[in-house]
């Protein structure tokens, strides 16, 4: 391929075959051991029921549910998604079955997965978040709460909590005292000037792990009809288009906040191929979540595992932790 021939060749050491070493893909997320770093991003795999036809769910490192709110939510009007260059916009509006139906109808399915489950929790008031997190303390299969304070597609709550360090401190602190058994993962918004400020606020208030990033607030306009394409007006941009920004943000938070604090990062933002997954590990991530690519290829997580193992063998890495943050800091 002409485009490839013009690229500089790989450095010499990259060509060394090291198939004799064993490759351990397992990682530790704040005390929860995952068989591998790969998991679906919240909202892209439902509650696992829909994907059973396509994927060996037991091969996932962890399962992350769609956002759960205290009460059921119908979500936004149609149209909710549109494809853009190397990405997509969505404005689903946290449509979900609500806490009660989640506990009675969805948890039994999640129990059968045999992998740790992280439940993404959303709300409009601190009390809402606390009520849901409290109920999840008693669900054995749940090992972590992912605090969604970064949804760009709901009018109240969501991103309002996620862009102000003071609010992040307040809500993370409130959840900290509720999450005794479950680990507390705070999902950060990229819609801020300096993501290390919001990351530091979450860590100061007791977050066990950070997941980053949620989608970028964005907009597409139908120029013929002269109105926004999405019924919600704006939406969240995801997919390969946002990957380089996500990599930069993960690296910044790793260097300035997470490494010193010993807080692991679960990274997401446009991962499609194994090289993208490796890129996030090198930037400083310990866990990896895939969203948009799952819509195209429901089997992508197992392919990424194989690709990651391949990479580690070729480079002589025996454990994922050795790859995490293994790039020089450029300043």
């Amino acid at each position: 391929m002409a485009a490839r021939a013009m690229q500089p060749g790989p450095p010499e050491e990259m060509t060394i075959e090291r198939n004799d070493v064993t490759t351990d893909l397992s990682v530790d997320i704040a005390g929860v051991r995952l068989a591998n770093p790969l998991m679906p991003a919240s909202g892209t795999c439902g509650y696992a029921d829909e994907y059973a036809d396509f994927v060996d769910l037991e091969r996932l490192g962890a399962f992350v549910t769609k956002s759960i709110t205290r009460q059921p939510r119908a979500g936004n009007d149609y149209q909710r998604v549109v494809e853009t260059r190397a990405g997509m916009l969505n404005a689903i509006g946290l449509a979900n079955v609500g806490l009660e139906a989640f506990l009675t109808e969805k948890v039994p399915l999640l129990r059968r997965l045999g992998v740790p489950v992280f439940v993404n929790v959303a709300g409009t008031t601190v009390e809402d978040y606390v009520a849901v997190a409290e109920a999840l303390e008693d669900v054995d299969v749940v090992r972590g709460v992912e605090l969604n304070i970064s949804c760009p597609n709901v009018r109240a709550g969501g991103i309002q909590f996620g862009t102000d360090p003071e609010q992040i401190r307040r809500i993370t602190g409130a959840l900290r005292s509720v999450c005794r058994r479950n680990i507390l993962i705070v999902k950060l918004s990229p819609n801020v000037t300096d993501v290390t400020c919001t990351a530091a606020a979450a860590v100061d208030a007791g977050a066990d792990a950070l997941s980053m990033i949620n989608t970028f607030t964005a907009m597409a306009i139908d120029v013929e009809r002269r109105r926004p394409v999405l019924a919600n007006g704006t939406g969240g941009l995801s997919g390969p288009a946002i990957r380089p920004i996500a990599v930069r943000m993960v690296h910044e938070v790793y260097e300035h906040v997470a490494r010193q604090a010993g807080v692991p990062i679960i990274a997401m933002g446009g991962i499609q191929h194994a090289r993208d997954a490796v890129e996030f590990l090198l930037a400083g991530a310990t866990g990896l979540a895939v969203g948009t690519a799952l819509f195209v290829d429901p089997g992508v997580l197992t392919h990424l595992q194989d690709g990651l193992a391949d990479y580690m063998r070729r480079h002589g890495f025996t454990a994922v932790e050795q790859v995490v943050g293994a790039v020089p800091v450029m300043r």
Partner: protein
Amino acid sequence: MRTSRGVFAARVAAQRQLCAEHYRLTLSVPGFPASRPGQFIQLLCRPPYASSAPRELTWGPDSPPQLSDPELIDRQTMLRRPISLAGRRDSGDASEIDLIYRVVGTATRWLTGAEPGAELSVLGPLGNGFAPRGAGEAVLIGGGVGIPPLLYLAETLADGGTNVTAIFGARSEGLMPLRVDGAAVPREPAPSPCIADLPPQARAVLTTDDGTLGVAGTASDALLEWLRRREGGAAGLTAYCCGPEPLMRAVADICIERNLPCQLALERYMACGMGTCQSCVVKVRDTNAENGWAYKLCCTDGPVFEAADLLW
């Protein structure tokens, strides 16, 4: 357990341009699960990256993937495109599916260049199909790119002994996605065997908005006139419809007014097709809900809905 739906490697068996905007694509899909008319597939409208591992980049020691692979090499779409099944043939383990698509953008334009033998990735079959009501008489109302699923349905209905009348419309003669016997096309809503893509016993009325072929007007206008002329009106009939939303709304109104059972295959923008992205919502009557309605998903609850249930 994984037999009802999945991701399959397909090969292009044949592709033919039907009219100015529509193409008929036949794919050979070994092991494609049982399917029903009204179901659809999600088609990846770009080449799988490598035939051995279709979802991953080639990553050998001497050719590690570069930052620019693959998203900068070509202008390609990312998401799959939902396309309804227009027909299917099985012999032994071999299955062939027919798709009729309209060229509307980057994905479908790329698809027109897929040569026989090319590999494509198919996810499916998805959704609930039509629920045929046994023998009797059926009227199939289709508009434009909504016609293809009704061709598959006509075949299945005819096989089951149902009398099929098709009323198919397009904007103009050059946009009719069908093989038409021009000499046999009636200029009034009196069905005739004028479409080669329908079972031999089926009869059809064709309409064009501009009157260049068949009856001038829309398919819903022709349905009204055909019902008026029909002995017994709507009695003993079941209607099945797919097409642009204005046509489907008109047909739904006509059928509801006459107590004529009517199933509609809807179209929505969707990302996954598997029930997870929650984007393809349809407003449906729900007496259990506080406000009297609920969102259903076009991909897994549909794409076929009863006309009487729809709030659109």
